[in-house]
């Protein structure tokens, strides 16, 4: 069973704790909306599940398909069936998109795919996503528009066929038509039994893909877990009701201001800091 089970997960970045005891279970084939104010740990959760080196897990466990995810390297997690559609996909100069896609496809095959078959699959997937085929021959994400980058993430999902896809604000940068195209692909994969955990700040995408559940992350923990009515309510009224009805104080996003501002001597400040 492709079940994702997260228990008491704590994680930090640069010594600052972001995840403060996350408990969450995603069953096979479920589509779950993950909501929450900015800076409360949603993207961190995805990155930790995928093994981003910037984050340190200090406590807790993540199991998928009964395997200890945290004991695996990032590539092994991907091959286990986890996929992260990134909020800000990296631009990698010189790495040709199709070379990268072929390497990713081959990474999970014993015998490498033939060039003919690869291009056949790629051609079909780009058509489905209404992407110009020349994107495949350009440097990975370099010079892509915001929408093209997001479609390229979905293209990768299509080619890699994960069991659970975590999509981080996949709708940002997409125009109305492109969002419909992406939603159609997600719906097709839902019908194939794929699970989804989807972060979005807007109800529009959720309305198109019909999540079966919605969970809300506040202060680094799952504060609410319920039906789709939750994201509809949040879309209409915001997060205030969580404080008034559930008594959970929502911490403000901690944005550290740059200590050096125009008019001060940056070098002097830097020397002081080193001392």
């Amino acid at each position, binding site marked *: 069973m492709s079940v994702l089970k997260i228990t008491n997960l704590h994680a930090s970045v640069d010594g600052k704790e972001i995840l403060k005891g996350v408990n969450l279970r995603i069953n096979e084939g479920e589509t779950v909306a993950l909501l929450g104010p900015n800076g409360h740990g949603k993207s961190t959760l995805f990155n930790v599940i995928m*093994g*981003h080196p910037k984050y340190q897990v200090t406590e807790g466990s993540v199991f998928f398909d009964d395997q200890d995810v945290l004991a695996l390297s*990032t590539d092994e997690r991907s091959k286990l069936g986890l996929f992260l559609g990134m909020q800000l996909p*990296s631009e990698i100069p010189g790495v040709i998109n199709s070379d990268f896609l072929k*390497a*990713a496809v081959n990474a999970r095959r014993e015998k490498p795919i033939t060039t003919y078959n690869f291009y056949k699959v790629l051609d079909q997937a780009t058509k489905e996503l209404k992407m110009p085929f020349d994107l495949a021959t350009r440097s990975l994400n370099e010079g892509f528009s915001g929408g093209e980058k997001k479609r390229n993430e979905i293209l990768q999902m299509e080619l*890699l066929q994960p069991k659970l896809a975590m999509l981080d604000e996949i709708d940002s940068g997409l125009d109305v038509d492109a969002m419909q195209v992406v939603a159609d692909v997600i719906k097709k994969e839902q019908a194939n039994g794929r699970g989804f955990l989807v972060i979005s700040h807007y109800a529009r995408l959720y309305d198109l893909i019909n999540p079966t559940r919605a969970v809300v992350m506040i202060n680094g923990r799952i504060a609410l877990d319920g039906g789709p009515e939750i994201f509809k309510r949040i879309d209409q009224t915001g997060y205030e009701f969580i404080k008034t009805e559930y008594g959970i104080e929502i911490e403000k996003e901690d944005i550290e201001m740059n200590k050096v501002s125009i008019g001060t001597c940056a070098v002097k400040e830097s020397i002081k800091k080193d001392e």
Partner: protein
Amino acid sequence: MNRTAISNIKNNIKSGAYIVDGLMLSNQKVSIEIEVNSTCDILLNNIKDILELNININEDSNVTLAFLSESEMKESNININVKHNASLVGYFADFSNKTLNLNCKVNLLEEGASCSYKVASLVADDDRKVVDVSIDHISPRTYGKFDCFGICKDDGKLTVLGTSHVFKGAVKSNAQQNCRIMVFDEASNATAKPILKIDENDLVASHGAVVGKINDEHLFYLTSRGISEETAKELITLGYLNPILEGFKEESLKEHISSLIERRM
């Protein structure tokens, strides 16, 4: 592409595609004179065997020079003169092992002369390599650009030098230097020293150098798609050195260079 072999010590050439094989001109001082208003594409192999290479690009000519260095090169001296409204596009692909000492001097002698010179160098094992590409802007409205892409791994040491000198009177000239070296291991050692010498006020000039490790975000992105860290590094390296491949027209050569990189990685 059919190339005509250049096998003499002194050569006068017109438009066309050429190949210079250093093995044929071992321990010689070789000169190539490119005639006025010519367009030439010259591939240079085994340059290590040539004692000194002098190239004159005459008025209104456009020349592409692609050097491929595959084996040890203790000392290599290349001097190139570019005349009125002539242009040079140079590519130096160095995937040799052990030692490289490249001294390349480009003189932008007359008004409107231009030069764009790219070097890619891969340093591994206990290689010691020094790359020095200097460009003199002697006349007005000259353009010179030097780009270096380096990979430094294992116990290798790479030093990239280069002086772009804009002489007094070379008004409206444009001098650019850009050096990027990616360091893979703690024991690797990379130094980049691009130098601008400016004796004129009316010009555009810039220089920059970056020495750093492989980008963690790039590595995470590729491995998050199931690609092993080793393959991801290889892909990033090939991508990083990719700009040099554009100088080599033959597909077979591009493939050969890619396999040289893979072997050395």
